[in-house]
């Protein structure tokens, strides 16, 4: 099983979610996060004083999927989350040792 962590622009959430649902990924966890890569932030002004806002709001999506569809999931995310402009985000893939469904106790791929 692979864990696919994605950081995307917040307004892309619906699109990515729908595309993942459509290809058979039925569960996910999202988090509101802030961050920056090479994008950095921007300057704002408050009562005459300038300040730099480095952290940009993003959405992080975690999905855990069967190895067989992991590559397809990554491709789907790449396609739907992309705008072509700076700040589109990143995808990280790691291996999951075990997954368990709390209600039934199922493990492995049945738990996903």
């Amino acid at each position, binding site marked *: 099983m692979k864990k696919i962590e994605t950081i995307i622009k917040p307004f892309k959430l619906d699109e990515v979610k729908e595309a993942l649902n459509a290809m058979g990924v039925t569960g996910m966890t999202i988090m509101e996060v802030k961050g920056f890569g090479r994008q950095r932030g921007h300057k704002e002004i408050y*009562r005459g004083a300038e*300040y730099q806002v480095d952290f940009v709001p993003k959405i992080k999506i975690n999905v855990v999927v069967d190895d067989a569809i992991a590559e397809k999931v990554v491709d789907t995310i790449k396609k739907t989350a992309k705008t072509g402009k700076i700040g589109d985000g990143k995808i990280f893939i790691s291996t999951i040792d075990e997954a368990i469904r709390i209600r039934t106790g199922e493990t492995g791929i049945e738990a996903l």
Partner: protein
Amino acid sequence: MKAKILLIVIALMNIAGAWAGDEPPTPLSNKAAIDLVQTHADYVWTLVAAALVFFMQAGFAMVETGLTRAKNAINIMMKNLMDFSMGSIAYWAIGFGLMFGATTSGWFGTSGFFLSDFTAGGDSWVLAFWMFQVVFAATASTIVSGAMAERTKFSGYLIYSVVISGLIYPVFGSWAWGSLFHGQGWLEGLGFIDFAGSTVVHSVGGWAALAGAMVLGPRMGKYTKDGKIKPILGHNMPLAALGVFILWLGWFGFNPGSTTAANKDIAMIFVNTNLAAAAGSILAMFVSWVKFGKPEVGMTLNGALAGLVAITSPCATVSPLSAVMIGSIAGVVVVFSVLFFDKIRVDDPVGAISVHGVCGAWGTLAAGIFNMGGTSLKIIGVQMLGIAACFLWVFPTAFVLFKLIEKTIGLRVSPEEELEGLDFVEHGGNAYPDFEVTSYGGMSTAGVPGGSLAAASVGYVGASKKIEAT
């Protein structure tokens, strides 16, 4: 309209008299009855205006909390609740007597404490007049809470509230307004013009605010060692704007209500008030646009208030065109004043010193310059004397008061308490329990404004559960 009312009154009285078998009406009894209607109208207008000015307390509370961090919101509410409540009691007990009591010296009154001028069944005018005056006293006292926000010990602030409403404000008020009741002030005797209180109310509050901000020192993280100014963002700009609108509305009681009489004079005062506020906000917006590249909301809000404060003194004695000019100049002055106080490292989270102190002085001076009956060096001189007298009485007295509080029970909270937030530390509460109130401002990362994390993430993720879950 007045003729119609007169006719109806006369007709009704004739009918009533004939029906009841009373004495037939005479011109004298008619006049008495008509005068009574005017008196009743005076009462109604004065008390409606007093209610409007009371509502300005809500305006101040919203401006202050909007421009400060969420972790201190409860503290701001408590300070505003208490400077009005404790101020009301102090003004009833001592302040009103000092301000409007009979005087031999012309420097303070010595009668009318605990509303002793009122006896059951006696003339109620003293009650209506007191009600109008107490909300003015409360306005002066609440001005200071904004400049001292986010780092003041609550107990220290309570003591201050009693002293400003009980002593500092009424003494100066007696100099300028004493003769409105039983007193007689030396300043008004010289012809000092301050119709609704640019100096009596707003500069008194503004200079006390300056003293408080100086004794307290700036908030942690506001100014860096290498001279940079780090903005500490307010947590709710819509509340700040709501506050300004409420204050603008309340000012329609503040200025025209100062006639304490229902007559046609109030029309021009209403118009002048509105024009000055509008001009102030427009000019402040333009100045911020030119200086910072974008029209900035904080400065624009301050500009509206600056215009309102400035027109408060001249509102009854200048033309509407003059009101536009007075408000415009106030709108420009306030922007530069806010920047100035930041530059000299006097931390004023809401701009109270600039809006009320500086623009109060400008408005008082403008009352001399733009005086409809003509101006003169003497008139302007008296205005400047009043401005100076106010500063020389209020600033040292308030400074000493704050120093005394600092040396005894303490005026400022500890650095740990300031970082934690006054809501939890002073009041054991959380203003927004459903939200993540994280403040990243303070000593560690002084550059990142507090409150923006929660605000920005809630704003960007439109369908966020955080908003819907409340």
